[in-house]
């Protein structure tokens, strides 16, 4: 009788002690500090706008090939001598830049002051506004800093798409949930590099661990003059650019 009562008391007491609701800070402390912080380096001086990175990304990540949506893209900037800036990215530059016309106009090469290409992808921000605004917590930051989307939980409200200042997000045409660049999370966590980095014939794209001081990418970011996109938003982007021009949006 006493034993049964004791067992009963034990059973009723168990759930209370077995389950503990952790606050966000406690939860964070419970997970060991990650030894990895993924960062990306784009050397715009090396990019020729071939679009191999875009093509490789679409194929690797099952982003439908023909719809005009993409996890990564390349922009072409043409700055004229009169100060005007022309920008384009035909189909995200999936097939590269095959025509000299930009924004449907012929530009006389003599009038061009400078021109260059700028590859873009998710900045995997340290302070990601997309994660902040997701009403159901379907998008989240991994310990390594990569922002991912849980396709089984996203309700498709589009708030994250609105919140991203870089236009990195879109609705996946088939899954109908928010979609974005993951730094090829399935590859980098297995010791491989991203599809775009692998596809780039000129080494314009590199990925590395910013917490590892001996990582070549970290070394470049620490020792050279790098830029980031739209720092005024306070998002702390982790894609660094070499040779970033002030005209780049």
């Amino acid at each position: 009788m006493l034993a049964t009562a004791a067992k009963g008391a034990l059973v009723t007491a168990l759930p209370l002690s077995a389950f503990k609701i952790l606050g966000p800070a406690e939860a964070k402390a419970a997970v060991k500090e990650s030894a990895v912080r993924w960062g990306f380096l784009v050397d715009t001086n090396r990019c020729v706008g071939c679009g191999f990175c875009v093509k490789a990304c679409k194929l690797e990540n099952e982003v439908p090939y023909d719809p005009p949506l993409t996890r990564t893209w390349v922009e072409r900037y043409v700055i004229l001598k009169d100060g005007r800036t022309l920008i384009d990215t035909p189909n995200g530059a999936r097939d590269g830049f095959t025509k000299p016309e930009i924004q449907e106009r012929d530009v006389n090469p003599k009038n061009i002051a400078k021109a260059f290409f700028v590859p873009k992808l998710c900045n995997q921000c340290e302070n990601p506004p997309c994660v902040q605004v997701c009403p159901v917590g379907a998008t989240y930051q991994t310990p390594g800093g990569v922002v991912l989307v849980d396709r089984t939980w996203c309700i498709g409200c589009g708030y994250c798409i609105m919140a991203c200042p870089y236009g990195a997000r879109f609705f996946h045409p088939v899954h109908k949930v928010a979609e974005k660049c993951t730094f090829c999370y399935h590859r980098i966590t297995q010791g491989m590099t991203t599809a775009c980095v692998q596809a780039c014939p000129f080494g314009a794209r590199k990925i590395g661990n910013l917490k590892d001081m001996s990582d070549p990418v970290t070394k470049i970011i620490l020792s050279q003059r790098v830029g980031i996109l739209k720092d005024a938003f306070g998002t702390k982007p982790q894609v660094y650019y070499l040779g970033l021009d002030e005209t780049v949006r």
Partner: protein
Amino acid sequence: MTPEAVHGAEMIVHGAEWTIKELFTYPNEYIYWTIQIVMYPYLTGLVAGAFVLSSLYHVFGQNDLKDMAKFALVFSFALLLVAPMPLLFHLQQPQRNFEVMLTPHFTSAIAAFGMVYSFYLAIVASEIWFVYRKFFVEQTVALKGKTGISNTLLRITYHVLTLGAYDISESALHKDEKAIKLLAGIGIPVACFLHGYAGFIFGSVKANALWMTPLMPVIFIMSAIVSGIALCMLTDIVIMEWKKFRIRTSRKRWEMTADEIGGAEIDIVKKTSKYLLGFMIAALTLELVDLIFRGYTAMKSWDILRTVIYGKDFTKIFILQYGLGNVLPFVLLLLPRLTVKRAALAAVLVLFGVFMMRWNVVIGGQAFSLSFAGYMEYHLPMMPHNMETFKEGVLGALFMGVLPFILFWLFNKIIPSLKFK
């Protein structure tokens, strides 16, 4: 999903159907938030406005609004039930909507929606119950002994609605009134919160140069009250005039006195229009402060905002929203010897103006690229050819616009909120 499955599946590029791009935009940019997201703040605005109007009587004892108060309360309930539906229509995964309640992510402005909404719904429902409790009891008693299925059904309905509280003594009714006053009092800040928070959803998007302003929640609240008052005024006029028309054309018209035929009372209309004017001034002032401030500070985004506000959207903002929706009704209501017809016209214009304001915020905020180097134009789908163009097209919006009236009509079968003579 295998690559083959992805590439073979039906693909819908959300937004491509109605977005026209101009100059340079990022490849993934489309008008993602469309007419339903215009309808959402419009409807919650009407809810908040109607509720505030009814509370002006209950809490602040504005006796001139007595007849309007009951009607406004029931109408706001009908609107409230429809208010979250545009959001549901807009979701890409509507069947997962309940996740907002299951796993609310509180850093998101939308996450609290379920809770704020439910709380407000409970307040409005209980206030209606207290207002109609005496009526429920009376009906249960009056219908007792009457035969016929409809009478029995009605009696059971009222019986259930009393929730077993049959005491309609003087002191009990006095307690009811106290409860109503309390609920209406709590309801005002909650209504303002519900709507101001719709403003916060937009105002806190730092990526969007047009939306991001701390004034947005206040602007939303003021325009909400404006639209709510205008809607109550208009609906009251239409229903009263319709009733008058029905009586005048009925066979019994010879038995009626002139007073009974009545129609909308100009006194009530005049008094309501004064509140309308007051809130219109507040709303317009805030909107103009915002506009002037943007122009004066001329931040980086102003170059493109200026071309949208004074160029591409000029007609929508200055002619339709401010001209037709603000200035004209303002003049109509201020001119001496206000008539019911003139007030009705003004109310229609005000409602249109507030709708255009929502449009110019939601769609206008997506009219330019995040790169500030290009534009996007929204082409509202008229004739739907698939679910997406129905939901996010003119038909879907009309559906949302009509639904509250159908609900209101249904509610009036049980809780008559219009005082007919």
